[in-house]
């Protein structure tokens, strides 16, 4: 044990084995299936997955995820800032704990909350004078997704906002900077990596969400996850499994593209921290 670090990598073996089992094997099966049609290697599934209704669904998913991620990033950052700078520890603890719980809300229960509250016969739909079906639209679904996305952003931003030292603001003020200058040239550059990371996280969370949309809007808002579910596990379509795999591969590519934009930006902005 004179040089314990030399064999340190052995400790990661279980993790790597686990990763290979639960991520590697399914990923290989996914790629293999996506490129197989009628038992032969083929591009037919991928071609079909990028046409017509499938393409519409993919665009719908990207659009919804982008809208939710950007809105939640703005709302979540403001909320986190308000809470972090608040003098009340109680408020701070309460909001952060609630965020931890709400960020994990999802699935059919989340859909049912909203249906019961703002659906056509919802408890307060009448009070608000909502037109029938208002919740069952693209924007209705976006609002429902914000319910878990905003708390998620609060959780992502609170530690970064804690890292903003009051001295920086004082120093900026002493040098004659306005509040706008401070935010533009000091705070935002420092916060940018966390914000970008948060946006990517939110995009991913909305992009992969399924059960809530399925229970609430069905196919009225076309989403790629609903398409995959119909093709993969349904009572209607027979023999669409490999199109589902091709759609999943498309999703992997989209997620990869988002990461490809995020990583260089993150590297560039995080220079401020070093």
């Amino acid at each position, binding site marked *: 044990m004179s040089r314990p670090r030399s064999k340190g990598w052995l400790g990661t*073996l279980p993790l790597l084995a686990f990763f290979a089992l639960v991520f590697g094997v399914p990923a290989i099966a996914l790629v293999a299936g996506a490129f197989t049609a009628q038992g032969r290697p083929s591009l037919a599934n991928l071609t079909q997955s990028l046409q017509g*209704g499938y393409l*519409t669904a993919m665009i719908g998913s990207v659009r919804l995820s982008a809208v939710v991620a950007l809105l939640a990033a703005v709302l979540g950052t403001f909320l986190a800032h308000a809470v972090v700078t608040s003098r009340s520890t109680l408020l701070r603890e309460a909001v952060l704990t609630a965020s931890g719980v709400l960020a994990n809300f999802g699935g059919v229960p989340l859909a049912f909350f909203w*249906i*019961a509250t703002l659906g056509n*016969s919802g408890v307060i739909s009448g009070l608000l004078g909502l037109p029938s079906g208002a919740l069952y639209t693209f924007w209705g679904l976006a609002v429902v997704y914000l319910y878990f996305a905003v708390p998620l952003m609060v959780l992502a931003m609170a530690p970064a906002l804690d890292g903003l030292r009051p001295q920086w603001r004082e120093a900026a003020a002493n040098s004659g900077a306005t509040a706008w200058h401070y935010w533009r040239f000091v705070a935002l550059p420092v916060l940018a990596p966390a914000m970008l990371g948060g946006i990517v996280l939110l995009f991913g969370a909305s992009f992969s969400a399924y059960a809530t949309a399925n229970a*609430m809007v069905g196919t*009225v808002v076309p989403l790629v996850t609903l398409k995959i579910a*119909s093709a993969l596990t349904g009572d*209607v379509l027979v023999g669409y499994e490999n199109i589902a795999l091709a759609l999943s591969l498309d999703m992997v590519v989209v997620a990869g593209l988002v990461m490809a934009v995020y990583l260089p930006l993150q590297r560039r902005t995080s220079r401020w921290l070093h």
Partner: protein
Amino acid sequence: MFAPLARAAGVVAALTVVTAACGAAPSTQQTTQASQGGVNAATATSAADFGGLDKLVEAAKKEGNLHVIALPPDWANYGEIIEKFQAKYGIKIESETPDAASADEINAVKTRKGQDRAPDVLDLGQSFAISGAQEGLFAPYKVQAFDKIPEGQKEATGLWVNDYGGYVSIGCDAKQIKTCPTSFADLLKPEYKGQVAMNGNPTKSGSAFAGVYAAAIANGGSFDDIQPGIEFFKKLKAAGNYNPVETTPATIEKGETKISIDWDYNNAAYAPQMTAKGIDWKVNVPSDGAYFQMYAQAINKDAPHPAAARLWQEYLYSPEGQNLYLKGFARPVLLPAMTTDGTVDQALADKLPAVDGTPTFPTTEQVDAAKAKLAAGWDAAISG
């Protein structure tokens, strides 16, 4: 720090190996057991192959277990059927993922081929029964009542046999809705704004697909032409009447889905549940579009409990099993035969929603074409 970490890592590694070992389940030792005594249960095609029903019961009891999949307890009375079967034969039923879809069932058969955990028996949507039979996944078996089942509602060698079915129906909360709709044409009336829901999305849910097919028939379409059905829902959406929420007992109770298109046995089964909650749930089979569809039973060719699987079939197609379906408002395949020979429980039959005329069935080709059309056109018609 390093040593404890390494030990923890070792534990994790050991756990991983154990879990992996559980994944590779033992092969079908049951099959070899059952073949003792001269009968190979896995290849038996009738009770006679066992030497009579008693011998089949004996062989099944020896296996002791039965794996079923995708049988929701509140669907076609499966909860009670499972209970009665267990009580009658002392065979323990392990019911896996009750809410699974037909595609999941076929997947389970394929991915767990040769394993002890595979499902023994399947209750499938018609097209999955046909495609599964073509892929050679099922064992042929003729129940004792096989000859009484009408042609076209069974595969000739018994690879699959229709078990029960129902009509597309319109359920309605009669306390909240002044006049319950009795036809597809009614559904377009402005008084039903935001009320008309389905049990899911027609590219995924069998009952919702049937709803679109029935709407096609009601609107000048046919088994060959589902397009008018898609157009109907487009109109329903444009009128603001379509409600995309997936119907569940919870949404009915909440009053969000006051009108729901679903199988009549689902809607009829909701009624007594809802009465207890002060809701008067009425069921009508639409007068302009009666569409009847059946599910099918099949035995997994590599069933880990081949004798119990065959006994389950015998039970389902016995008057007792068929009447239990009827109790769940599903129309059993032997209903006409049982009405003739008097074994039907007439009190239960009288509770079924009324329907005029005899059902007709689309061919497999017609259904496949309709599904392809729906998969391509549904989203565009309903989204936005």
